[in-house]
């Protein structure tokens, strides 16, 4: 087991070239806080971004920040906060859910397209990622995108790399678009709603002119005895007063909401963002992605087939976090069968390695999409040295 920690992009290129010659596959890590994600891979050496750190560019008035891939996410966030700005997509911290340690890196946020509750309004990490530098499987340093937010020059490799989990190459630098921190943030909470009623409430709110930035539903037993339906508003203070009044009025059939603000609101959304309701248990955890109104349909079918299933909804109902007894196969068959007819997909986020090795972690792709994906992997990494088998067995 060799650990490579290049201090420069040129060194990273040299390491990759030497690996191609020896034919030993490479794992890529940042802070390794998501090591438990995906299919377990068997590689003898690891390429770490830990030696590539530091902010490379920050122009608050241009709303853009760049950093080397191994820069701790926390440093990026502190740098932005000092100037009243933030990453638009509220990246999840996987440590609570996965029970892992280490320091999450900005490169892995890009590599994993890691987004949080704000995704529903402000887009995913991939929508804010505007530039990358990457060492491909030929040992070449390439760039795509840049530091300006409007850029359609050539094929958008940035999008491909975002969400590729290190399978296409080793990121050395990433550039994100950023946004101002809102003047005020509040959460409106309705209690006691069924899943269907809650998602109807969230849909009505998201289809209103009052712009919720986050919309979640925690059924009873998730963090509290009573079910809670959450809408988060972010704006100038006067607008918050006005919009929460209007929303209360629009949604009055669901009862009057309580308004929480400050630390209580922040903590609640951290729980949602990081799926902390499922931390420290033995359950397997899935992430289902569907059209929002289909969320409750999926969970109803699943709970009828999988005793002990628990869940909550983010993204207005379109993201279901689902915990099930790990069992033999994390109930993969029942879960995938339930959502297939609904047009969504399921990713196994947490499970013992034996299950992640035997159950497809990512939704298996139909042909010809699978062929295209394999072709793209090969176009970046012809020798198949990066994270072989991390996303799909055999690629």
């Amino acid at each position, binding site marked *: 087991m060799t650990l490579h920690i290049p201090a420069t992009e040129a060194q990273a290129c040299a390491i990759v070239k030497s690996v191609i010659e020896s034919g030993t596959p490479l794992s890529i890590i940042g802070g390794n806080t998501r090591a438990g994600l995906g299919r377990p891979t068997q590689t003898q050496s690891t390429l770490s971004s830990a030696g590539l750190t530091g902010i490379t560019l920050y122009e608050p*008035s*241009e*709303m853009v920040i760049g950093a080397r891939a191994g820069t701790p996410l926390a440093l990026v966030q502190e740098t932005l906060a000092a100037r009243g700005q933030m990453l638009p997509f509220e990246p999840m911290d996987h440590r609570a859910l996965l029970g892992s340690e280490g320091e999450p890196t900005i490169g892995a946020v890009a590599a994993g*397209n890691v987004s949080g509750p704000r995704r*529903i309004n402000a887009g*995913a990490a*991939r*929508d804010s990622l505007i530039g990358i530098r990457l060492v491909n499987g030929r040992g*070449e340093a*390439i760039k*795509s995108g*840049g530091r*300006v*937010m*409007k*850029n*359609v*020059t*050539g*094929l*958008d*490799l*940035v*999008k*491909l790399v*975002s*969400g*590729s989990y290190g399978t*296409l190459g080793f990121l050395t630098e990433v550039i994100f678009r950023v946004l*101002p921190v*809102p*003047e005020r943030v509040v959460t409106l909470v309705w209690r006691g709603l069924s899943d269907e009623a809650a998602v109807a409430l969230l*849909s009505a709110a998201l*289809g209103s002119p009052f712009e919720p930035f986050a919309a979640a539903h925690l059924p009873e037993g998730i963090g509290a005895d009573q079910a809670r339906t959450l809408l988060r508003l972010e704006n*100038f203070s*006067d*607008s918050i007063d006005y919009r929460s009044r209007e929303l209360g009025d629009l949604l009055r059939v669901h009862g009057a909401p309580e308004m929480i603000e400050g630390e209580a609101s922040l903590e609640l959304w951290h729980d949602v963002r990081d799926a902390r309701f499922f931390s420290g248990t033995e359950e397997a955890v899935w992430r289902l*992605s*569907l*059209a*929002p109104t289909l969320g409750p349909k999926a969970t109803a079918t699943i709970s009828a087939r999988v005793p002990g299933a628990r869940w909550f909804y983010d993204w207005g109902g*379109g*993201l279901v976090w689902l915990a099930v007894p790990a069992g033999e196969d994390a109930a993969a068959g029942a879960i995938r069968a339930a959502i297939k007819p609904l*047009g*969504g*997909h399921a*990713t196994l986020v947490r499970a013992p390695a034996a299950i992640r090795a035997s159950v497809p972690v*990512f*939704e298996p*792709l*139909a042909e010809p*999409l699978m062929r*295209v*994906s394999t*072709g*793209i992997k090969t*176009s*970046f990494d012809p020798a198949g040295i990066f994270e072989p088998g991390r*996303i*799909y067995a055999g690629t």
Partner: protein
Amino acid sequence: MSAIAFPVPDQSILARRDAIIAGLARLVPAEALITSADERRPYETDALTAYRRLPMAVVLPSTTQEVAAIMKFCGEQGVPIVPRGAGTSLAGGAIPQEDAVVIGVSKMNRILAIDYANRVARVQAGVTNLAVTGEVSAEGFFYAPDPSSQLACSIGGNIGMNSGGAHCLKYGVTTNNVLGVTLVMLDGSIVEVGGAHLDAPGLDILGLIVGSEGQLGVVTEATVRILRSAEGARPVLFGFPTSEEAGAAVAAIIGAGIIPVAMEFMDKPAIEICEAFAKAGYPMDVEALLIIEVEGSDTEMDAQLARIVAIAREHGVKTVKESQSAMESAAIWKGRKSAFGATGRIADYICMDGTIPTGQLPYVLRRMDEIVKGYGLRVANVFHAGDGNLHPLILYNCNDPVEAQKAEDAGMDILKLCVEVGGCLTGEHGVGIEKRDLMTFQFNPEDLNQQMRVRAVFDQAWLLNPAKVFPLEGRVAA
């Protein structure tokens, strides 16, 4: 003027023209196949009218299956294909070549389903951009990307170019507003990518397809996000004595944590051209104009505007003029959105589309002026100030070949300037043929080779819109 090269037409294909047309005729109804020179003529160029090539044939399929059959046939016959929406590309992205078949999606112009609860619409690729908003506006919804050409341009073309518009500062461009597509590949296979959910499994193929300029396949349908409109919107005109002050005001507004829905810049020549056309009440005694739009309830807009006006005053604003009515707002936007058309009434122009870091604005404006004057020409500037996407319009006379060449050279110098200051060749119009040969200026060979290797996954033989995006020399196929 013919500075930009096209691939030499393949004589072996031209020699098989009759057989190829007969083959196509077996795949689509007679009225969907256009073969006579007269009827092919409207397809010989797009909005980059200085270049034209008559295609071998034009097919206007009505279904995804027809597109698949045509693609498979052309793929097997080795015949180049040029996908086409409405042909409004400013980069020459839809210009055909003599040995190619144009696949136009204009007949596939239906809105298939609207789902307000999930805030998505399923549309065919040939539907116009504005028709989507038109269909959902009665319910208070809209489709966010709003290119100035939105009355004509198609969703398929918007996906091809990853088009933007005046309001993308807040709402993003096409790639941020498309959730799924049906793509027909060169071998005729039909791929469903994404859907009504927010993230697709596996690699982000959708993100790759958006902005791929018809080089990966033909998009026949798309699932797009529709958003609820704000309660109200109000554009306000801010006139500044200098461009520098206008630029500094934009930076200060963003620095204060305010992201207006739109911040559009016009310089004096552009103000004059647009005012003469739209009678929008633009101030004529200023050097630079910002159109800033705010959204929300009346009280919210008042509050946001008060903040913006205070910042503008700190930066020497001379005139502030708020729209007093819906009609006035419409006139203000009409002036801006018809900037290209209005310019076209007084002169021929080429429109550049580079993006720059906004901090470089004063320097770039000064240099652009010098560059264009150096060629003895005039320039009018309109651009999306919030994101640094420039649209200098270089005025010339297309009947004068020397002047035309100068205009093209000046444009290329400006794009190089954009790259030099840390920006890019194209912010929203695409590379097409126009900027193809400048790609090596922004990208090194490894960057371009990686893009071409990804392209090869979809089209080994360089049949899909082959004259575009990548320089004709040095192409790789795997």
